[in-house]
């Protein structure tokens, strides 16, 4: 399934914030988590994640720190801030409203579609 580019872009911020809300992480791991969560359906161009992460940092939604874990290479870690959590909560409200509206209307027209299919 191909997901529309605009939809991918719109969902990027809440998705990244939600993943960072699970615990601090670095770019590559965030991308892996996105693939995992969407069953590989959400395809991002890897590089594009970084300008997004930097924007979140500028807005004060995340803080960053360079660290070298015991096993592995030096990476920039991102951790969500209180502002970031607030932004995430706001995004959540908006998305819940959107998905509920879509769900309602599709349940309605779903009946119609089934009826058409049977005819």
């Amino acid at each position, binding site marked *: 399934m191909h997901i529309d580019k605009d939809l991918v872009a719109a969902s990027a911020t809440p998705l990244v914030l939600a993943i960072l809300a699970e615990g601090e992480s670095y770019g590559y791991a965030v991308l892996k988590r996105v693939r995992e969560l969407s069953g590989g359906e959400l395809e991002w161009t*890897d590089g*594009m994640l970084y*300008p997004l992460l930097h*924007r979140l*940092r500028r807005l*004060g939604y995340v803080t960053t720190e360079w660290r070298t874990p015991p096993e592995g290479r030096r990476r*920039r870690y991102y951790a969500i801030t209180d502002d970031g959590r607030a932004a995430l909560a706001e995004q959540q409200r908006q998305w819940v409203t959107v998905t509920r509206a879509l769900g309602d209307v599709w349940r309605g027209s779903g009946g119609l579609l089934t009826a058409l299919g049977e005819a």
Partner: protein
Amino acid sequence: MDGVESQIAEWRAYVAKAPAVNGRDVDELEAHLRDQIAELDAAGLIADEAFLVAVKRMGDLDTLSREFAREHSGRLWKQLVLRGEDEPARPSGGWSEALVFALAAAFAIQVARLAAQFPQEQPGWLLRNIGLFVLPFLAGYFARRRQLDTRGWVLTAAPFVLVALVVNLYPYRAGSATELLVALHLPVVLWFAVAYPYMGGTIRSHERRMDFVRFTGEWIIYYVLIALGGGVLLLLTGLILQPIGIDLDRVAEWVLPSGATGAVIVAAWLVESKQHVVENMAPVLTMLFTPLFAVMLTVAAATYAVSGVAGAFDRELLSVFDALLVVVLGLVLYAMSAREPSRPAGLMDRVQLLAVASALVLDVMVLGAMLARIGDLGLTPNRVAALGLNLVLLVNLAGAAWLSSRFLTGRIAFHRLERWQTSYLPIFALWAATVVAVLPPLFAFT
């Protein structure tokens, strides 16, 4: 694995060439690439294939660097002209275009000067319209450079036409105070009108507004440099020509107006195409003058607080404080435009807050004394203009100081300070426009 190492090094060098991607970002992207290669290796791909797949996944580098440029336009600012996505690179930096506009402006001012017979005569209309002989050319230069469409050109021209009508249809009395105020405020109004073509029409974008603030700051630096050089040149020319009977005043009469207006466009072109020359000027100026101003202002505030302000206030004092607040605001803006937004709060931010706070304390004291005096003396156009400007600046700096203290205590991101300034810009434009359009009729053009 050796082959892959050299391939990674090559890739890294290529990415590092993008102006908006700095060293740490390249490190970050490289770490990502290596993670990806390692995982593909583990999945059984041979090294070369793993590298190719990882690079492909990273995405097209041009798109990527453009995305970085969008986010880090401040960085980009220091290195090259911010181009529209599809605007082709101009190797010449468009100097011939700038030259045409500069010559046109120089010519226009000369025609106006001859028509007014300046400096023998000094008619009010020349004074009032001075900005209108210069800044439309700057606006035109940017409108062309940003390749605005017809609608963009119309919207660029509209404020100039409107202002020209207002300034020339109002029946000013000769030598009136309002006429002088208009002459002082009109260039400010027109400068904000230039912002529209400068931003390519995207005046709602806070990032572009910040770019315009940067542009203004750098433009001032360049203009002052050109003016200094031009002054030396003119003086020497006069001294050399004096023995053969040519008067310096006569030379200056012709050269000065055209030079000063042409330099407006040339300075703008320099900012546009040669930012890297002064990229370090704003930080240096800020580093140098912020502490000095902090000391001066703190001492002054303490002295005023001890000695009291009720003493001898003359009419000029409010204008002096307006100038002071403008300079402090300039320092704040220079510091802001030179700053990497993600850097944590440092000593300089504290020193700056001290300077701003002292200026505010001083200003509030003076303002209080002044308001009491105005009760006795009545309102004049000059007092209203000075008072209004003072309040506009006071609110701006008070907001900046408040946000800055919250930033220093780590409660908000630096981004909020930028937002405050970029959101406030229209208020400056509005106030200047009020002085030009509303104040004269209010005081019956006296």
